[in-house]
């Protein structure tokens, strides 16, 4: 019995989940797929008083087409996301990046919403959500509110989801025709977290790059947009040389951490190289 004791609630609706969180007080914690939380419980880095397991809330699962956006339930697993026909058609970058998360067994349990709400800057999907300009729908006792991805990731392991709230769904806008995508990730070993990852969405028009969106994984305490590189890419010729030149700005304004596996200047180097590769691939070069 490795984790510390906690009480357990298994609500069957968002409303009863919110009630269980409120009753549990400030040490209550939401359990989604558990692929980050259960290891933290096991290490006793987390010791909630009560776990509110969303596994029984069926309304939080699935993908639906809402016209100009896909709406993905927070408890939809990575496996369900990456194999979903709507996601593959309208949000190819999300399908691609989700297929690189951890390993198959983790993807069978881990959830899209859990990955976002956990707010780990080394996670692959926060940078993808940021690149898409996704919207997060959060339920609380006062009703539901929508938060832009740019405002959702607050700090290391901190998001806009309050302790008595639940992330219920994510709206991923359909970008339409003409967009290419690629997620480029550098990690030491299979299934390891990204040292750095780059999520690129590129719209080509008449031989040039009309618009590029670049999300950075693990280049700060939150996912980031490579704004300087995006600005440098807008309007340039869709050529390897022009992309390489713009990608040199990928780390501008970032201050990534240093750790056992990479110094900050190495992460900056990786951001530039991976941005060049990701954008070139997304642009079909």
């Amino acid at each position, binding site marked *: *019995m*490795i*984790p*510390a*004791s*906690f*009480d*357990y609630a*298994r609500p069957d609706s968002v409303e009863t989940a919110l009630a269980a969180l409120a009753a549990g007080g400030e040490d209550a914690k939401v*359990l989604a797929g*558990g*692929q980050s939380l*259960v*290891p933290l*419980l*096991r290490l006793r880095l987390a010791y909630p008083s009560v*776990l509110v*397991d969303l*596994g029984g809330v069926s309304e939080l699962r699935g993908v639906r087409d809402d016209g100009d956006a896909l709406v993905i339930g927070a408890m939809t697993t990575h*496996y369900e996301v990456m194999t979903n026909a709507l996601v593959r058609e309208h949000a190819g970058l999300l399908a691609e990046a989700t297929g690189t998360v*951890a*390993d*198959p*067994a*983790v993807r*069978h*349990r881990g959830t899209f919403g859990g990955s976002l709400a956990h707010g780990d800057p080394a996670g692959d999907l926060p940078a993808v959500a940021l690149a898409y300009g996704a919207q997060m729908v959060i339920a609380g006792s006062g009703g539901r509110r929508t938060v832009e991805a740019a405002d959702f990731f607050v700090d290391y392991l901190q998001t806009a989801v309050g302790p008595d709230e639940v992330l219920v769904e994510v709206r991923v806008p359909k970008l339409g025709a003409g967009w290419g995508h690629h997620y480029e990730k550098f990690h030491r070993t*299979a*299934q390891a977290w990204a040292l750095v990852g780059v999520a690129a969405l590129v719209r080509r028009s008449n031989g040039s790059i009309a618009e590029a969106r670049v999300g950075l994984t693990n280049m700060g305490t939150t996912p980031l947009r490579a704004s300087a590189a995006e600005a440098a890419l807008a309007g340039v010729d869709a050529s390897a040389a022009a992309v390489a030149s713009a990608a040199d700005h990928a780390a501008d304004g970032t201050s990534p951490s240093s750790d056992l596996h990479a110094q900050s200047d190495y992460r900056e180097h990786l951001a530039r190289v991976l941005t060049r590769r990701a954008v070139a691939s997304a642009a079909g070069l």
Partner: protein
Amino acid sequence: MSTVPISVTVDGQRYESDVEPRQLLVHHLRDGLGRVGTPIGCDTSNCGACTVLLDGKSVKSCAVLAVQTDGRSVTTVQGLANGTWHPVQQAFHAEHGLQCGYCTPGMMLAAVDLLTENPNPTEAEIRDGLEGNLCRCTGYQNIVKAVQAAAVAMQAEGAAR
């Protein structure tokens, strides 16, 4: 110490148990139900030795709470054989897909899931599909050969039906 009643089908047999919410599935299988075919490897969710199938899909049983499996079906390595060895078991035997054997239960269950998903995988797809399962003996060559052999056997078996 409060417990929660759960009902879980393990290898075709239904078990009613009262478990503490903090009980990990792997500990429930081993200590609660005495089904010790599922080993504990790294205890950090990295190695995949404790992989089982939950409603047919591979999961790491050290990263699942027993309470989360209430009403569901678990397959361990002890449930793979059905009178005769499962083709994946036969192939691991024939191709010497193991050295010390510690990773083998998890490796075989990940392989079963992989072949259910993709009955005719390339070598690269096999290596990708098993990326969550580590062999400290580094016996990957024969593991991959075993999965390739199992794929052939299972397709032949399917065709013969």
